[in-house]
């Protein structure tokens, strides 16, 4: 059995680990859900510029007084940072598609060993639309998937091949779950970090994708802070 984690602990573990991927000066777009939590864990020695696809470059935290004229992509009020910029959608997606974003952090329904990502549609269920996700995974230099390791039902999400409609083909750079860090290296999925108390044999049972265990496999960074 893998360690059973409280959902909140799992979500924050993932967010804390993702935040360590950034470098000083990176421009980053955060998706909804776990990715939103990432901004709480940016190391103090670096500065990250958050972009929101509805037109903010330099999104700051929620203001004390709500002003609906400044919102993020999820609809929550925000305050642009001093030195931030407000842009129209064509510029915003030009930045995204044009390779001006260092990273995008998104959730996943499924991700596979080839770096394919599915996170926008479950056929037969509602059709929400892809929003900006297809542009983000196409244009950002690094596509970081921040997701719980399995669905709420316990089904694996990290698969040999995605079964759901893709958001992007061969776009994923890194997958962070509450149990591991998997990095795509030259088209191959490599297990680089594993959470404390996770047995590799048990891990394999909930991770049907083919992955190589790195010779430098180490404990998942940030877990020591919990």
């Amino acid at each position, binding site marked *: 059995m893998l360690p059973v984690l409280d959902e909140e602990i799992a979500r924050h573990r993932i967010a804390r680990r993702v935040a360590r991927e950034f470098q000083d000066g990176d421009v980053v777009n955060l998706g909804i859900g776990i990715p939103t939590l990432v901004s709480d864990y940016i190391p103090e020695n670096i500065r990250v510029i958050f972009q*929101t*696809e*509805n*037109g*903010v470059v330099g999104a700051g935290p929620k203001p004390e007084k709500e*002003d*609906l*004229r*400044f*919102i*993020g*992509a*999820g*609809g929550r009020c925000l305050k642009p940072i001093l030195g931030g910029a*407000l*842009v*129209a*959608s*064509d510029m915003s*997606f*030009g930045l*995204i*598609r044009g390779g001006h974003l260092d990273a995008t952090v998104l959730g996943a329904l499924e991700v596979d060993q080839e770096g394919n990502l599915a996170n926008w549609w479950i056929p037969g269920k*509602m*059709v*929400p*639309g*892809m*929003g*900006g*996700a*297809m*542009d983000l995974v*196409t*244009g950002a230099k690094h596509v970081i998937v921040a997701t719980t390791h399995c669905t709420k039902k316990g089904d694996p999400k990290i698969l040999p091949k995605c079964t759901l*409609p*893709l*958001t*992007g*083909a*061969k776009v994923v750079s890194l997958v962070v779950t509450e149990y591991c860090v998997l990095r795509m290296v030259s088209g191959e999925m490599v297990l680089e970090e594993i959470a404390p108390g996770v047995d590799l044999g048990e891990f394999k049972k909930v991770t049907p994708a083919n992955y190589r265990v790195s010779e430098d496999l180490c404990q998942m960074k940030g877990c020591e802070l919990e």
Partner: protein
Amino acid sequence: MPTSVIKPVMSAEEAVKRITDGSSVMIGGFNYGGIPYTLVDALVDAGTKDLWLISNDTAYDDVGHGRLVVNGQIKKVTASHVGLNKSTQRLFNEKKLELELVPQGTFVERIRAGGFGLGGVLTPTGVGTVHEEGKQVIEVEGKRYILELPLRADVALIRAYRADRYGNLVYFGTNRNFNPAMATAADLVIAEVDAILEIGQIDPNDVVTPGILVDILVLKGDSYYASRT
């Protein structure tokens, strides 16, 4: 006949009379930001039907142009995301609404192409996904791109911050979003603004949408979201 460069200012009720049954209508906004609420509410009241709605999303059931969907005035939606409006989903499932979903960056580029005289745009977004199906894929320097075709509309309802009497527009906050692009891509452009200023009160350096693109000006009303956005 010389056309006056001074743009008519009228009520929302009067302005939306220009929209006829079966028209294609672009409406600005992202989530609840930057929607021309007063115009949209007037269009709901007018009951104009069989509209093709071109907007990033369909807002919420009881907010902005989400109300047009709920009211049965829309026959087709072109959008990037409709997940926040349950009625859009329901009507689509009941086959009462045609739905075209477009990646958001592609959505705005198609509008730009429509407004800027381009025959389409080549984008890598969606290559290798279901979005590619039925579209022409063109290889340029070894990389595959989808050919996306221009989008135009009969009417664009847009939201800006301030206008002058020439129709020059400036925007505020995250209300800008798709509004400047849509102002280029419709036969009739109606702009809802917080204030209408005299000529000279907007510095030409600050103008985002030149007034030559704008046909009618409407002052925003005092509904909940109109007054807060």
